[in-house]
């Protein structure tokens, strides 16, 4: 039968087409209902290919209707061609077979019907709906009406048969289609999504399983187009969604597989929730820190995802709502306030309670009921917060006037009444017209109403590797630029451009460098916690204060600083600050103080750790050093040298080994750590008054100020920081001891001489001192003179590691690329000294 219908309608379609006038596109409208009829029949008969043809024909008509008669000629012939093709196709089909297929379809259906009449009914309706959507063209109100009718049927049937989710989604969809009718929307995507969703729900229900997937995205799609203003509607909808799940929560047995996943989920979720709590408290102090918001957002997201999978609907819903709120906060829609953190904390608590239920369920083997835990109120609150805050959460304008005492309540009420009658007028306008307020007052109140969001630098996260690479390349650019400068010195015009380039390059390098700078505050903050813990443990009262915590420092240097600082703070707490009784005996306040300073000083960052404890006992140190054989006996030592002794390996003056410090591995580790980063550690101490550890580290580890010197064929860079002076020794300023140990005399003091080629073994020629210069270098109050051939200049060098394999070569701090592109070696003065002393 359908075959005949198709044939006859096709014939009438063709005749209509011939009759219609190409110049009057409106006449084509008559074709549309016929096309639709054919389409429906085709889909019924499972003639998908043919149905598609009809759809194309239809799109052509649409475009003709839209674009007017200008390009109609060709379009029109296209249409004619398609339709005649279609007719031929239809005629070629075997009518008997076709009808048989249709009959099969029909006969199949009753089978199901006997078992599940509602489902098949729903299915039929859904099919009808999907057909309507597929054939829908914008602006066809009657079609929409038909859709609404179908949806109504769906809603009715599903209501009768306990398919709550199905019913609710259909309702939402209906609301959307109503919206489409009213506002002439033509986006049918959401409806199509709904149909697929409904179909899958149906298959689940048929099998007797609960549908537990997260379908919120589909609802969101629907809602996106609905007017958002009405919060009530949204929350009402949430309620609707919720009611459906009470049916499913009848105690069921938990299978073993689920058990495993559930256990994992719970432990993970609990851990997540605990981190959320901590982060939330941090967030209260720093509400705009998106990193923290991210930290909170992620766990909620995970919980939402996994709980959805495990059909823990309440947890899923609540986590979802919270996640939404955080998401808007994260995207900067509003700034997190205390009310928001409170609400999130409340939802954390509720989630914990829900998790407890699940845990009980695991223990008993049956899922525990969580009906008594109410998540709806909380969710409504979360949604409300999200919507109201996103809108701006403004204080009503009238309220502002009243608060500022520019307006009385009665005046305000009057104005509001006028506004009620005259709804398009704004409150401010009315007030000005009524001469209640000056325009300026209104303006200022309006400004106040929309608080200027604190302008935040948009920040991005960049991997440190990329940052380091950038710094590397910036350094390279500097080198390349200086090479260029040398090569183009002769040409005035080019060198002008080159110097311009140089400026840009320098700026770029500065920025690249500054990107790695972070305030030292974070490291200092960690010390507060440390001191608190230590003072608890040792029973001393210790207070930590700090100055200059905003001082910026290279990120790598911060890492270098942390460990040594921990060591030294421990030392100060354990050995420096005396016990309470000792302190009161010495007439000091009971509370011990540790003060941290940070400041820049000549290209270095200096960190001082000062305590008001008992100070270092010089005699004790000397005694200990003698007993351990570090020093021989009555050596003449400066204070600094004595204090340096405590930084020798295996030296510890603490009488008692505590678990905090005093195992004899302390200060030497600290010193090594700092010196590895070209830093310097010195100690100042007064017995009974306190000790001060002074760490000085280069601001950046990437650049060094150095003097380029030539020795034989090699060139070396000596860090300027170590250089005392350079001079040419005159007659009688050079001595030898036993013809081996060489020394030079500089203003009365004798300085041992180092020949680099000897200690490095580069060559054996012993040059005469007369032809050479000496550079006096100092490290740890020791001086040595290094014999060089010539001074080649002073510059800033980008330090390059020689690679993993050669990082620790004694006497070499690294490499630097010279202006000619060759690698020069940077001397490590300390290392050279120790090589010399080993010999």
């Amino acid at each position, binding site marked *: 039968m359908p075959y005949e219908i198709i044939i006859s309608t096709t014939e009438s379609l063709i005749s209509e087409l011939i009759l219609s006038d190409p110049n009057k596109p409106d006449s084509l409208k008559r074709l549309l209902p016929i096309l639709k009829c054919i389409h429906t029949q085709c889909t019924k008969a499972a003639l998908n290919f043919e149905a598609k043809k009809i759809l194309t024909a239809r799109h052509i008509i649409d475009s003709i209707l839209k674009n007017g008669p200008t390009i109609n000629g060709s379009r029109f012939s296209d249409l004619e061609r398609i339709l005649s093709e279609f007719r031929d196709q239809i005629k070629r089909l075997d009518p008997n077979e076709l009808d048989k297929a249709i009959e099969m379809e029909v006969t199949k259906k009753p089978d199901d019907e006997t078992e599940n009449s509602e489902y098949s009914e729903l299915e039929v309706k859904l099919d009808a709906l999907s057909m309507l959507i597929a054939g829908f063209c914008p602006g066809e109100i009657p079609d929409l009406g038909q859709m609404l009718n179908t949806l109504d049927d769906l809603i009715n049937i599903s209501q009768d048969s306990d398919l709550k989710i199905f019913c609710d989604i259909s309702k939402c969809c209906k609301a959307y289609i109503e919206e489409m009718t009213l506002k002439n929307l033509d986006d049918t995507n959401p409806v199509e999504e709904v149909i697929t969703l409904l179909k899958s729900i149906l298959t689940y229900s048929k099998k007797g399983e609960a549908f537990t997937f997260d379908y919120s995205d589909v609802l969101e799609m629907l809602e996106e187009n609905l007017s958002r203003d009405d919060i009530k509607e949204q929350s009402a909808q949430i309620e609707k969604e919720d009611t459906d799940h009470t049916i499913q929560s009848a105690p069921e047995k938990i299978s073993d597989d689920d058990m495993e996943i559930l256990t994992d989920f719970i432990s993970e979720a609990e851990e997540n929730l605990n981190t959320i709590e901590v982060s939330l408290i941090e967030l209260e102090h720093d509400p705009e820190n998106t990193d923290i918001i991210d930290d909170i957002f992620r766990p909620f997201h995970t919980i939402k995802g996994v709980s959805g999978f495990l059909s823990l609907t309440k947890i899923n819903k609540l986590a979802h709502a919270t996640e939404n709120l955080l998401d808007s906060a994260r995207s900067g829609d509003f700034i997190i306030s205390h009310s928001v953190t409170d609400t999130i904390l409340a939802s954390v608590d509720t989630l914990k309670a829900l998790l407890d239920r699940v845990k009980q369920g695991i223990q008993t083997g049956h899922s525990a009921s969580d009906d008594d835990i109410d998540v709806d109120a909380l969710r409504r609150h979360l949604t409300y917060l999200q919507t109201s805050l996103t809108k701006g959460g403004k204080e009503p304008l009238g309220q502002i006037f009243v608060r500022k005492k520019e307006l009385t309540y009665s005046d305000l009420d009057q104005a509001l009444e006028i506004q009620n009658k005259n709804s398009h007028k704004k409150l401010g306008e009315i007030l000005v017209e009524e001469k209640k307020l000056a325009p300026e007052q209104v303006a200022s109140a309006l400004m106040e109403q929309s608080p200027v969001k604190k302008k935040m630098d948009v920040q991005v996260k960049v991997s440190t590797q990329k940052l380091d690479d950038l710094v*590397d*390349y910036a*350094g*390279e650019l500097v*080198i390349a630029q200086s090479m260029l400068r040398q090569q183009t010195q002769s040409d005035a015009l080019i060198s002008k451009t080159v110097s311009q380039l140089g400026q840009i390059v320098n700026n770029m390098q500065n920025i690249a460098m500054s990107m790695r700078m972070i305030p030292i505050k974070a490291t200092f903050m960690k010390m507060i916690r440390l001191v608190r813990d230590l003072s608890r443990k040792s029973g001393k009262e210790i207070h930590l204060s700090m100055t200059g915590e905003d001082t910026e420092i290279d990120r790598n240097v911060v890492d270098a600083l942390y460990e040594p600082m921990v060591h030294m703070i421990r030392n100060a707490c354990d050995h420096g600050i005396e016990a309470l009784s000792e302190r009161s005996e010495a007439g000091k306040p009971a509370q011990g103080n540790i003060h941290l300073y940070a400041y820049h000083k000549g290209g270095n960052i200096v960190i001082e750790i000062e305590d008001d404890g008992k100070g270092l006992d010089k005699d004790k140190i000397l005694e200990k050093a003698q007993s351990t054989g570090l020093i021989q006996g009555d050596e003449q030592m400066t204070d600094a040298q004595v204090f340096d002794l405590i930084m020798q390996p295996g030296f510890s003056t603490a009488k008692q080994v505590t678990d905090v410090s005093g195992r004899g591995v302390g200060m030497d580790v600290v010193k090594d750590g700092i010196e590895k980063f070209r830093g310097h550690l010195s100690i100042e101490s007064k017995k009974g008054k306190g000790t001060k550890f002074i760490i000085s580290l280069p601001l950046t580890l990437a650049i060094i100020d150095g003097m380029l010197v030539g020795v034989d064929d*090699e060139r070396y860079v000596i860090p300027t920081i170590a250089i005392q002076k350079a001079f040419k020794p005159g007659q009688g300023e050079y001595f030898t001891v036993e013809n081996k140990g060489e020394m030079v005399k500089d203003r009365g003091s004798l300085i041992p001489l180092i020949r680099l080629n000897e*200690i*490095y*073994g*580069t060559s054996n020629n012993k040059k005469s001192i007369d032809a050479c210069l000496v550079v006096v270098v100092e490290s740890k109050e020791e001086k040595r003179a290094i014999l060089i051939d010539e001074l080649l200049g002073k510059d800033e060098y980008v330090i*390059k*590691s*020689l*690679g*993993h*394999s*050669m990082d*620790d*070569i*004694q*006497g*070499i701090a690294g*490499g630097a*690329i010279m202006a000619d*592109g*060759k*690698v*020069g*070696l940077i001397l490590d003065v300390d290392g050279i000294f120790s090589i010399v002393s080993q010999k």
Partner: protein
Amino acid sequence: MTKDKSPMDQAIKETSIKNGKYLTFSLEQEEYGIGILKVKEIIGMMPITSVPRTPRFVKGVINLRGKVIPIVDLRAKFGMESIPYTERTCIIVVEIDSKDATVLIGIVVDAVSEVLNIHGDEIEDTPAFGTHLDTEYIMGMAKTEGGVKILLNIDRVLSIKEIQNIQGVM
């Protein structure tokens, strides 16, 4: 976790590693090969800054576009007589896997020959030469039309530890 692979797995991995493309180069009269995936680039000879207190086979360091990389003379490493560098002398920059990172190291060879596709069954295990020749870093011997190529396990040839260890030895 990755370290505790069964010997079987390791054996499979090694054979599959052996199969593949090799960059061959000459040293003295001998032909050597390194797995092509290990090779980063080949550059001509350039000024090398010697670094003191390193083993003799470490020629020094070069500036490879801003990165300082160490250079190892393979002749010196294999105890061959050193010859003056010619026009054909090349530096092959290879990637060495070390414990925490991959590092670039340049190796000086007499000349680079070609890239060969060597099949797994053309490769024979290294015969034992006795005590006078350490075969630990030889992956195998490939019998090709052009003769026998000695396939190097470059990670072992240039073990970082070895370069580090010789500190102070001079």
